[in-house]
């Protein structure tokens, strides 16, 4: 059932953790939407940098400093190519996507007092729009920005199938809207949103548009020029990269005018006690010593998925998703939370079982070696929307096999037996 040309058994050999046993049985890792496992090349990439080429970046005139700066800036080139960014200077390394989104929210509120940044100022009467299916990391920064500036926080609601209410897009995004920040693929529902459509609407009303691509980057080809939004962010650890690194892409002309966020080394032009001036993007937004080895290893992860082929990954996972949706929906009483077919959805499936709490489902699956997640998946408004405390979520990656999905389905049935 897996797509032709994608050799999942070969891929699995690249991931050392997949030979682990859990409770005496082989690990079946179905929690990639939470964080993906790392191929050996990514692990080696960090280790090699430390063992052979390490120093601080940018600041040094010595050989190691040059080598590490080449490696770090080389990773920026790789990410720029991965995103089809018009310029490498549009790629900012952050700690994770959470920081990327906060960077924008704080930069916008700094516009209130930063000379020359009038065009970015928000205040009472202005509106910030998200959707009801956002991750907390794309809700809280905007609620905080609204609190700081007096702007109004609004959202596009979702329907019973876990999709945005189409008609609400034009209703909620209006001339009052200054910022629209929305998720490409939902981590709680698996839904893939019409990002071009939303970005276009934002542009039509003159609002900034921001795409949370945390769950899109690992699963489908990302092309920032094609998406048409102003900013696109993702997080490294879900893209088979190390923890501690993420990416914010933004249109250069916006980045060039946005006030800085964190202040410190590397983001300045000159510092005097009487005042400071700031350097150009991307470094303006990278204060202090960056996550050097992590950015380099993220570059390696980008190389890794690019070699597998993002289209091939998408096909592989689409087939798995269809297979899993069939298998799971055949289970007595199981309810899918989110789109029930593989159309416009990703390889992340949330479900509930009558009378059995998701925590118990996940824990009992773990006892069978199967790692899934249970909870609100940092998207509590989704649970509130469907009146459920939590869901169980299985999510797939490049190393997932149909055998693992069979194991999941029979594992869930086993859980039902225990609670029968």
């Amino acid at each position: 059932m897996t797509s032709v040309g994608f050799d999942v058994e070969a891929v699995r050999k690249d991931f050392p953790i997949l030979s682990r046993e859990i409770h005496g049985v082989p690990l079946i890792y179905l929690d990639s939407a939470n964080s993906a496992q790392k191929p050996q090349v990514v692990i080696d990439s960090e280790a090699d940098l430390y063992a052979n080429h390490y120093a601080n970046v940018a600041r040094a005139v010595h050989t190691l400093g040059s080598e590490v700066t080449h490696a770090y800036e080389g990773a920026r080139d790789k990410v720029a190519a991965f995103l089809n960014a018009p310029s490498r200077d549009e790629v900012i390394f952050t700690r994770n996507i959470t920081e990327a989104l906060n960077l924008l929210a704080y930069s916008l509120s700094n516009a209130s007092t930063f000379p020359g940044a009038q065009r970015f100022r928000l205040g009472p009467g202005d509106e910030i729009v998200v959707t009801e299916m956002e991750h907390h990391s794309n809700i809280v920064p905007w609620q905080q920005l609204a609190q700081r500036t007096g702007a109004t926080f609004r959202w596009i609601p979702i329907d019973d199938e876990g999709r945005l209410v189409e008609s609400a897009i034009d209703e909620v995004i209006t001339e009052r809207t200054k910022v629209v920040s929305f998720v490409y693929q939902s981590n709680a529902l698996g839904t893939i949103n019409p990002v071009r459509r939303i970005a276009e609407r934002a542009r039509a009303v003159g609002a900034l548009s921001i795409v949370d691509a945390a769950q899109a980057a690992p699963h489908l080809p990302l092309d920032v020029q094609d998406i048409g939004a102003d900013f696109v962010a993702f997080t490294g650890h879900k893209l088979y990269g190390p923890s501690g690194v993420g990416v914010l892409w933004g249109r250069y002309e916006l980045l060039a005018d946005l006030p800085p966020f964190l202040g410190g080394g590397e983001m300045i032009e000159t510092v005097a006690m009487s005042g400071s001036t700031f350097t150009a993007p991307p470094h303006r937004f990278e204060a202090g010593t960056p996550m050097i080895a992590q950015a380099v290893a993220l570059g390696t992860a980008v190389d890794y998925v690019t070699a597998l082929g993002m289209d091939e990954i998408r096909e592989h996972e689409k087939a798995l998703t269809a297979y899993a949706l069939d298998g799971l929906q055949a289970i007595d009483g199981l309810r899918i939370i989110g789109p029930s077919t593989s159309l416009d959805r990703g390889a992340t499936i949330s479900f509930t079982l009558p009378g059995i709490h998701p925590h118990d489902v996940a824990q009992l699956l773990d006892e069978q070696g199967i790692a899934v997640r249970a909870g609100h998946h940092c998207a509590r408004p989704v649970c509130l929307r469907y009146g459920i405390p939590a869901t169980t979520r299985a999510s797939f990656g490049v190393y997932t096999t149909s055998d693992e999905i069979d194991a999941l389905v029979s594992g869930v049935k086993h859980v039902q037996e225990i609670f029968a």
Partner: protein
Amino acid sequence: MSADSLYQQIILDHYKNPHHRGLPDDFDAEVHHVNPTCGDEVTVRVKLTGGAIVDLGWDGEGCSISQASTSVMSELVVGKAVDDAMALQDKFLSLMQSRGNATLSEADEDELDDAVAFEGVSKYPARIKCALLGWMAMKSAVAEAGWGAGTNSAGETA
């Protein structure tokens, strides 16, 4: 189900047939506790007389660990002197914080009784709050009912 499953038969039994479930009409205090990270909820009502928990009833929603643990807790504390119930609560808390390395004396095991079945939970940080939910609510309810106020009243009479 393997022998070292978190889901000991005792836990499943309490989950399927919870003890003291239901809210008594005659009570001194009621508290409602929620575990925000997983949505588990419990309401506990207590009645104290002469320094003892003479009645306790509860209602709640959540995973089998939180529900069964609340059931076990209520079995253990109803009829106990409040001081003894607090000591037991403390013992259970330590067990949960033991990261799977608890060394229980025979006396401890006797006292904790069915609650010993939750030992395995201590290995799963994300579940410890589930097992503690009912116990924490019981402690709050007892405090709410005025227990300890006497010993703390020095400041109030000053």
